[in-house]
């Protein structure tokens, strides 16, 4: 009985962390698959959104859902502005320029956060309904974590459904698959980029805010988890919602378990596994097959 509760506790903890990773990374996966743009600054948008959400709750006394909405909208707006003015110029540039540009953006975001808010980390105040513990029968676990896992599943399902059923989803899939063909079919690829980028950044914002407990929220956020976001995306397969979902959950559970049992250097297995996976499937588990 004890073992089951322990096991379930660990599993749920890992899944919750993985869900946060997913919510942040799903936008990155889609935009990288769609635009082929190496956006290392994606975490910075998550950080920005997270700060808006948390600060509006802590300092401006917004409610939980309104804070989430504000964070989403603010990050969407910011990303549209940056995409139209700066990112756009580098779509045709080489990978190196994209890496440099996005690293520069990360530094700007981090420094700006320190200057405007300060270097301390921020905590998310949970609404009372989501606090406390929930009894699942075989285990009692934190309500918030279970809430997150549920939300993550709904988001994954919702986005997947949108991809499969809506017109814009079909357009995105077509463009990911073959951009030139999509353009010749009359799809407005530029507009698609902006919309996808905006939505992806908005999702990242939600992830940053909702996950403030798991990943923390401090000015180094944009850099701290960069490698994990990239792992989730590249192992899952660029442009695949299912791929990044599974990869994120797997990564979350592995990281949770390893940090628990092998706190010093245990994450070596995550990197080793990533290397092996990427060598076996360079396009990711669910990525497009090599022709």
């Amino acid at each position, binding site marked *: 009985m004890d073992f089951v509760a322990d096991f379930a506790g660990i599993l749920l903890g890992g899944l919750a962390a993985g869900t946060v990773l997913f919510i942040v990374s799903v936008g990155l996966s889609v935009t990288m698959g769609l635009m082929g743009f190496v956006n290392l600054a994606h975490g910075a948008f998550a950080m920005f959104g997270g700060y808006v959400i948390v600060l509006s709750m802590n300092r401006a006394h917004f409610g939980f859902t309104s804070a989430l909405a504000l964070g989403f909208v603010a990050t969407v707006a910011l990303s549209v502005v940056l995409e139209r003015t700066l990112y756009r110029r580098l779509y045709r540039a080489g990978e190196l320029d994209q890496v440099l540009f996005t690293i520069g953006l990360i530094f700007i975001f981090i420094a700006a956060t320190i200057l405007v808010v300060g270097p301390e980390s921020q905590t998310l105040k949970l609404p009372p309904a989501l606090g406390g513990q929930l009894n699942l029968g075989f285990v009692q676990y934190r309500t918030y974590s279970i809430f997150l896992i549920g939300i993550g599943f709904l988001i994954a399902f919702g986005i997947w459904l949108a991809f499969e059923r809506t017109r814009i989803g079909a357009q995105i899939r077509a463009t990911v698959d073959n951009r030139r063909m999509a353009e010749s079919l009359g799809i407005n690829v530029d507009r698609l980029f902006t919309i996808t980028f905006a939505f992806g950044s908005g999702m990242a914002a939600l992830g940053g805010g909702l996950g403030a407990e798991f990943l923390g929220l401090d000015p180094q956020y944009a850099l701290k988890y960069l490698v994990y976001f990239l792992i989730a995306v590249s192992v899952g397969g660029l442009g695949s919602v299912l791929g990044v979902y599974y990869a994120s959950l797997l990564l979350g559970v592995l990281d949770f378990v390893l940090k628990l049992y092998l706190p010093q250097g245990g994450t*070596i297995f995550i990197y080793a596994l990533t290397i092996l996976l990427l060598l076996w499937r360079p396009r990711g588990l669910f990525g497009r097959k090599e022709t």
Partner: protein
Amino acid sequence: MNAAAPVAAPAQITSRVDHPAARALTGRHRVRWWEALPWLAAVALYLAFPDYLGFGTELLIVILFALSLDLALGYAGIITLGHAAFFGGGAYTVGMLAFYGVWTEPITGLVLAAATAAVIGLLSGLVLLRTSGLTLLMLTICTMALMEQADNMARTYTGGFDGLPDLPIAPVFGLFEFNPLYANTQFLYALGVLFLCFAFVRTLIYSPFGQSLTGIRENLLRMHAVGSPVRRRLVICYTISAALAGVAGGLSAQTNAFVNLSALDLDRAATVLIVLILGGHGRLYGAFIGAVVYLTLEHFLAQIYPTAWQLGLGILLVLIALFARNGILGLGETLWRRYDARRAAS
């Protein structure tokens, strides 16, 4: 060669190689007068600013590290954020051998550091260089992170985050001791090592092998189509680059008598990338200029206004990516070309 005009051939050969285009190629490797300047500047630094020799030593090490990255990135086009894996590999080789009293002689220590880093480079290169683009970038980051975690796991031997302090390094040539307070020996030692490594890199760049690396960088598909064994060249280049990064790491461990986890982290790898890009990649002296500019600015600004430094650096990177992708040397070249064109037109 055509059998068409055998008698005329010798005269034609002379005239062909005399053509300005040919002469540009045959003479490209010749040492120009201004190439002595960096070394004269270093000697001047030694004589004129004895208080800054610690900074100077660090500068020389960063130049060497950036130079090693330039081989892989600037000449072969391998985009990596994991080069600290080799720096750290070399640093820890020297560090652990010295700390446990196994080997303290500095020059051979560097050779061992280079060898270890080369092995890591060869093994990882054979495996990683099958991929490209984002996958390759990810794999380089993961390899480096893997080494960092391995170091952490073995912290009873490696010292973990705190590292190995007070490394006993034997005097250079048995005569010149490393004095932690006065960095004279460290500086001249690092200068000597940098000079030798630079001479090697310079020879490599101007060799036919170096030219083929440029071809690989300029048009990979074309290189395949001229029968070039591309992957083999890339692996060799990556291995040599790793070895040199290992020497830089070893130098760092020796001159600081200290090595810790920061030798292997993403911060170090990102910094050397920034240094190289700032100076201008794919250009022999980009590493020099980038290191001087970056470290000087960092030395003066980062300590006083660390957040403003980070902000400024970020803005600089964005501007470079948008407008000056070839760094300072690239800007210089563009200006020179414009000046040259205007002069030719008038």
